[in-house]
């Protein structure tokens, strides 16, 4: 594997819910301006790991994180770090599209306004919607509710909303699982375009999707004794044609368990 330029680095990262360990000693480098997918069976800690990358686990009272997450060398869990600021730099898109019950325009303008954005907000909204490949479909109805859009459009609106605060990383937790195949392909195409300027991590159950969109893939697993440990990480091309570990092979060929 060629050397990767990491923007995020998990170092001996473990996560507990109360006393239960759900992510175990993960060491993972996330490449800058590339798409990294996290795959693995249910309960293998994929989403929990993803949430570590912008401290979303802080919002779960019982969650405790051990180890480090370095963002361009800065420890996200360090003392002087404001998790809210982190979430602007490292945005998130969720499984089900969750636009605010506001207009399309206000959905996108929301984050920048809270942030005290001083520039041309119209221009920012247009740019974000264009980047999310939604502008042409909504430019004549920016004042209508975000909830009036189709599922695929809503998800792109959520991506535009994340982009509006100008993050450098976008975390996606099963972003297509509520979408039909065409809307799914549109999001995948968009991810591909966005990866020129953003680093993207996607959690997906859809192996074909991971193979299609991501440059790198991390495979997490759960065993009786250990939960949420990383079995293999590598270029997706390699993982999906010739994985090193037989557990990876068993999982991606559907012969797991």
């Amino acid at each position, binding site marked *: 594997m060629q050397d990767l330029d990491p923007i995020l680095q998990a170092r001996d990262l473990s996560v507990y819910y109360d006393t239960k360990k759900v992510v175990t000693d993960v060491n993972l480098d996330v490449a800058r301006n590339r798409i990294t997918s996290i795959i693995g069976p249910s309960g293998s800690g994929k989403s929990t790991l993803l949430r570590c990358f912008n401290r979303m686990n802080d919002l779960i009272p019982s969650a405790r994180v051990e180890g480090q997450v370095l963002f361009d060398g800065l420890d996200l869990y360090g003392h002087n770090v404001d998790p809210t600021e982190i979430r602007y730099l490292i945005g998130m898109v969720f499984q089900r599209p969750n636009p605010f019950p506001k207009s399309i325009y206000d959905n996108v303008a929301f984050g920048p306004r809270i942030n005290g954005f001083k520039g041309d907000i119209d221009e920012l909204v247009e740019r974000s919607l264009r980047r999310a490949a939604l502008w042409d479909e909504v430019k004549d109805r920016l004042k209508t509710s975000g909830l009036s859009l189709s599922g695929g459009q809503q998800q792109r609106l959520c991506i535009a909303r994340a982009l509006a605060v100008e993050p450098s990383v976008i975390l996606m937790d099963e972003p297509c699982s509520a979408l039909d195949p065409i809307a799914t392909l549109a999001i995948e195409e968009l991810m591909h375009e966005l990866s020129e300027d953003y680093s993207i991590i996607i959690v997906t159950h859809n*192996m*074909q999707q991971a*193979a299609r969109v991501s440059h790198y893939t991390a495979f997490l697993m759960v065993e009786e004794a250990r939960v949420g440990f990383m079995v293999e990480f590598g270029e997706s091309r390699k993982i*999906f*044609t*010739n*994985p090193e570990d037989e557990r*990876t*092979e068993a999982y*991606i*060929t*559907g*012969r*797991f*368990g």
Partner: protein
Amino acid sequence: MVRADFDRSLEELQAELVGLGEMVERAIIKSMDALERRDLAVAYEVVAEDDLIDAKRFELEEKCIDLIATQQPLAIDLRTLLAVLQIAVELERMGDYAEGIGKICMIIGDDVPVETPKELPQMADMGLTMLRRSLKSLVERDTDLANAVWDSDDDVDELYDGVCRQIFLDMGQHPKTIEAATHFLWVAHDLERIADRATNIAERVIFLVTGQSGGFGDHRENE
């Protein structure tokens, strides 16, 4: 096993591929038999039966495409299907060489102007052994055996060079036999190609098992 159906399909596919290999093996044996005995009826059979080999190859290809489209194979499954596709083509081409020998028999006819060079049956035997071993290496996922097939290709090449030299020499000494000798040159060429195709099959087995493509040179450099 949660993909029992798919696993069964892969097993059946491999069995059919081995079946195709046996058809090709029989074609080579018959073509050489026809050549040595100048048996036009057998030669004609070889030529006619090549259609069955071609049909079987396309049948295997369709099954591979169906499985790729419906099962979205990855990793070892993907490599298996690609290997089957490619090996089916190699076998079909070997069948064509046997057919070529059959056609040469029909051109030579049943009179015997010159004796068949003794190296030709030797080359055929070696090619057949390589074919059998390459398919065995596939069934047993045996890379050592696949490597051994590759090694024996040099022996066939050596015999080929020798028989060509001898034929050219004979041509010079007995100009009347030039036409017949030219036909034997073609047979030697076909047999040499059969051995090459067996080597290609062995290469595909290495790819299937290890994921390394690029042929034996690359594979060995990595060892």
